[in-house]
């Protein structure tokens, strides 16, 4: 948690209308971002969003309105301005330009961010401080961050490295903190804004109607949106590194560019009401609905080596999040926030096999009741230096419903399975209490430390018919962190930090049975928490024209929960598909340590003529024990230590940004990655990864935007200018081919 902050009443007063102004007023948002992003606020923004365009550096739409990530750590932020400039397809897509983040897509309607080589359940996603991770998030990439509507986001902070002390379980590789758009903080007439968006490569057509306004005490922002997205056209096939052949995934249409098993429909709705009860207290009531329909899982539509017409599709992928929050910010520095939340994650899958006239259906629903409280009292004084403490407690209780059935359509017969992917009636709790401290030991030295006592509990009933054992486990992990920040020179800051984080096994690890990318995976009810110890060393250089940041890290995973190849004889009862699968896996705690090492760098350089250049680069290297038994044949290669699964290759970004006070702005960006040939055992049987590894790529895009007066903004991105055929490592979907993404925003009244 970021501790000492300027009194929010002042800064927020500038930021909030700044956001509104950036959206609604004549001040060119992108120009303001480019020019002012690194500068202090020089003047207060005009309260009236209808005021005439101004060239004054008043609006900080390039900065996030909310920053929660702990200080003194490796982090970066995607701002609203970034989102408007890059026009990402989704929340995960918005993270592609962040240093140290690599986005994998198992489907066009899915996206999973790798942070420092870890993803899915080994990273934590928060929305306005509410935990999104549930106990059914599976090992490896998952689709759930995609179920945030990027059009409702003000910013996304990415904290790289472990952070279980403030955030609890799962925060091993990093934390993604999504912050929603806030309503205006000052009286503003209620008015609608219309957003239209389209893209050529996947025939996207969509829009959103948003209404926002505020009275003296009450502010509201809300909207309804939807889009229909078709098959995604790529730049062409990405071939196996070993033999140059086409991988099994994805399947292409006859043009060898259009990817089958892509496309989806999406409907969203949200409302956020903020009541400023007093000068120090505010209450927020908010609800966010995400509804995704008919989203095929690309690597299973059709599955490798299967008929063209077999398809696993998410008929419904829903998230409903509703919460109430109370916040207090006193002038003396005390801040407090408490939330009560309910979240429902619901998915309904259909695996359709027309040739057999068979449809398998699975429905999983997780209801989560959550509560958090955090209090930062006014600073204490210790040895004449300020000490800030933050106390917090949180808890999230999951209630799981899971069903599976098979329909033989020609026979009009339905078989109800004894269990779904999970066990009906399972329960899971995760939470804990923590204390964090920040002590300014010296004007140039700040020390930080904290600790958490966690609690995780898993309960799942036995299912005799499927031979599934009951689960009744409780863990009480104790973790902590410590770090120091030394301002070594006017422009140079050095940082060091060590963190111990944990992830308790969740219901997916403990109870799920599923066909995964590399084979059939079955449960292990005897898992124990995995722990990550991360050492970060970083430096920041900050001058008037240059910002430079570099980090090196080493993460040691103890008891890492990883896939161990299993024999046919290990398959649980009543799982013929386990016996018949090419590969079988069970999650186990690795008996030896796994290691991740990495280097991350980012820079931002202010150039003449209102140009700004920025770049990022990340390298990650992971290795762990080989969990497969040594082959009896000595000719078969075997190594006792092997690469960790799906660790991204060396990758980076370069962007050149320009803006003109007239409202015209332009930018170009290049994303690149080297080939990744370091494959885990499971990766080699994962159809998402071409044989031998994933080839490298470089993808160029060009962007332009024009803000016309106070009411219209047109933005466009020419993506993949060179029409490169490329794929992010571990993805089922190749990236879009050359195409245009266009966005129109209008506030006509």
């Amino acid at each position: 948690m970021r501790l000492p902050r300027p009194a929010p009443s002042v800064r927020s007063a500038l930021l909030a209308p700044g956001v509104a102004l950036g959206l609604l007023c004549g001040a060119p948002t992108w120009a303001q971002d480019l020019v002012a992003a690194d500068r202090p606020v020089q003047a207060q923004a005009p309260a009236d969003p209808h005021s005439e365009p101004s060239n004054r550096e008043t609006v900080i739409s390039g900065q996030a309105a909310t920053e929660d990530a702990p200080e003194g750590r490796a982090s970066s932020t995607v701002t609203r301005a970034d989102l408007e400039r890059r026009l990402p397809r989704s929340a995960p897509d918005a993270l592609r330009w962040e240093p140290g983040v690599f986005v994998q897509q198992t489907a066009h309607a899915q996206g999973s961010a790798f942070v420092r080589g870890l993803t899915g359940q080994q990273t934590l996603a928060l929305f306005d401080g509410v935990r999104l991770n549930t106990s059914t998030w599976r090992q490896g990439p998952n689709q759930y961050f995609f179920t945030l509507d990027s059009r409702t986001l003000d910013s996304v902070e990415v904290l790289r490295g472990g952070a279980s002390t403030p955030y609890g379980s799962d925060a091993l590789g990093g934390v993604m903190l999504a912050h929603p758009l806030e309503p205006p903080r000052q009286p503003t007439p209620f008015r609608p804004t219309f957003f239209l968006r389209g893209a050529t490569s996947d025939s996207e057509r969509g829009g959103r109607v948003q209404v926002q306004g505020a009275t003296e005490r009450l502010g509201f922002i809300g909207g309804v949106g939807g889009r229909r997205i078709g098959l995604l056209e790529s730049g062409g096939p990405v071939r196996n590194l070993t033999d140059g052949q086409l991988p099994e995934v994805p399947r292409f249409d006859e043009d060898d560019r259009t990817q089958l098993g892509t496309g989806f429909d999406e409907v969203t709705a949200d409302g956020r009401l903020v009541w400023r009860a007093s000068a120090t207290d505010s209450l927020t009531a908010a609800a966010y609905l995400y509804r995704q329909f008919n989203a095929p899982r690309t690597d299973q539509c059709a599955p490798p080596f299967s008929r063209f017409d077999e398809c696993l599709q998410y008929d419904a992928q829903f998230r409903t999040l509703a919460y109430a929050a109370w916040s207090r910010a006193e002038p003396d520095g005390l801040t407090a926030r408490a939330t009560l939340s309910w979240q429902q994650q619901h998915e309904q899958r259909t695996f359709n096999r027309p040739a057999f006239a068979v449809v398998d259906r699975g429905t999983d629903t997780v209801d989560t009741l959550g509560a958090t409280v955090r209090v930062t009292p006014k600073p204490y004084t210790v040895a004449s230096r300020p000490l800030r403490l933050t106390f917090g407690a949180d808890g999230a209780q999951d209630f799981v419903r899971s069903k599976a059935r098979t329909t033989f359509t020609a026979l009009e017969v339905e078989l109800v399975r004894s269990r779904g992917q999970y066990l009906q009636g399972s329960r899971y709790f995760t939470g804990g209490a923590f204390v964090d401290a920040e002590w300014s030991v010296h004007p140039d030295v700040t020390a930080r430390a904290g600790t958490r006592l966690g609690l995780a509990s898993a309960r799942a009933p036995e299912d005799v018919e499927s031979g599934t054992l009951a689960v009744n486990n409780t863990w009480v992990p104790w973790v902590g962190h410590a770090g120091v920040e030394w301002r070594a020179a006017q422009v140079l800051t050095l940082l060091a930090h060590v963190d111990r984080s944990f992830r308790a096994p969740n219901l997916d690890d403990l109870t799920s049975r599923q066909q995964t990318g590399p084979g059939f995976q079955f449960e292990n009810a005897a898992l124990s928490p995995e722990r990550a110890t991360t050492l970060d060393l970083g430096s920041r250089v900050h001058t008037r024209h240059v910002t430079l940041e570099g980090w090196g890290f080493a993460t040691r995973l103890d008891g890492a929960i990883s896939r161990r190849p299993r024999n046919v004889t290990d398959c649980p009862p009543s799982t013929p598909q386990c016996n018949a699968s090419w590969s079988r896996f069970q999650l186990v705690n690795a008996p030896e340590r796994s290691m991740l090492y990495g280097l991350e760098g980012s820079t931002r350089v202010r150039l003449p003529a209102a140009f700004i250049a920025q770049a990022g680069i990340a390298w990650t290297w992971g290795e762990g024990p080989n969990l497969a038994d040594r082959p009896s044949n000595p000719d078969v290669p075997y190594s006792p230590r092997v690469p960790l699964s799906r660790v991204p290759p060396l990758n980076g970004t370069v962007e050149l940004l320009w803006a003109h006070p007239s409202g015209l702005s332009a930018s170009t960006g290049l994303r690149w990655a080297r080939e990744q040939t370091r494959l885990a055992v499971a990766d080699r049987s994962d159809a998402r990864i071409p044989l031998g590894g994933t080839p490298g790529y470089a993808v160029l895009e060009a962007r332009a935007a024009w803000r016309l007066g106070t009411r219209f903004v047109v933005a466009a991105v020419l993506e993949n200018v060179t029409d490169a055929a490329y794929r992010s490592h571990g993805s089922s979907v190749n990236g879009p081919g050359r195409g245009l993404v266009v966005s129109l925003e209008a506030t006509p009244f």
Partner: protein
Amino acid sequence: MKRIFLSLAAVALLSTACDDNDPKPTDPPDAGGTDVDCPNPPHYTENVTACQPAATDYQPRNATANNSTTDAWPACISDENTYSPIDPNISTVARVAAFDEIATKLWKGGKVPTAQEFVETYDLYTQPEGIGSRVQRREDVHYPAAPNGGRCRDEGVPATAPDRCVGPAKLLPIITDAFTRGGKGEAPRVQAARIEAALLWFFYVSPLSEVMSCGSAPKDCDSAWAYYTGGTARGEPKGLARYVRELAPETHERAYDAALAVRCWRNLDNESGTAANTELQLRARNQYDKALLRGTALILRQRLTELTCGNEEGSQARMAFINTLGPFFDRAVREINPPKADVLKAEVAKTNAEDVDVDAAVAALDAVFPCP
């Protein structure tokens, strides 16, 4: 009384002839011929004394030949006359086990399956990674590949090469239709027989397909072995191997020899990588093909001889079996003896059991497949 005497004699004979590797008395019979409506089917006795293995055949049972200076096969992992899996986890074993389970529920012993049993077995057949998943993509490697590099699992391709894409183009429609009709209670024994026949052909073409794919995927040699044997030792056959062994023990032994030949080839040919010795690969495949084809043909032969045995329902079931399995032999028979192929084709196409010239059909098969 005569029947009892014959039964006792048969039991006595079996009890003296069996060794540890032979099927246990509790093992259900596979090869047909013991239907409740046809308790005394014509008995086929294999006589291959006139047959000699080809000089290029792999002969692991014959220590003299195997170790002779003229042995066409260098020393290899199969010389101990047992199969050594490349990978102990052979997914095909589960598919053969599923076949045996389906057999027990649908057709063994002339059973009249219920609609519910069709549903249960269809569920087994269509399990992810189950038999159906392989039927739908099975290719018959005797035929040229689909034009323009088409893959049999791709849309429209089976229609362009139905013989090559035998799984999706021919077997899959038969099996799906039979399960559907059976699930609706329509002529259950007939539908069960169609399923049995189609799956037996699947288990004939599959080992040969796996031999070819084993060149790049070594584990597929294990599947080539397991699709025939069910992943068992010589004397404990499952699936197709059990059918063959019960009818023609030496043919089974020769098929097992050939499965070991496949493993021997892969052992000699860069076992952990991509194979290069296509000559040895084809030699093993051809040895395997010859034995498997004869074994499968003998199953057809047996059903022909049982055709009019027993009641009407059983006869219809056997007719359906012959109508389903018989046409698949046309390619192989025609390659060897076109006139016999014409005869066989005509007889197995008849739909009325009384019209079938069993002797002519059997003679055609005997003439074309005299030796394993």
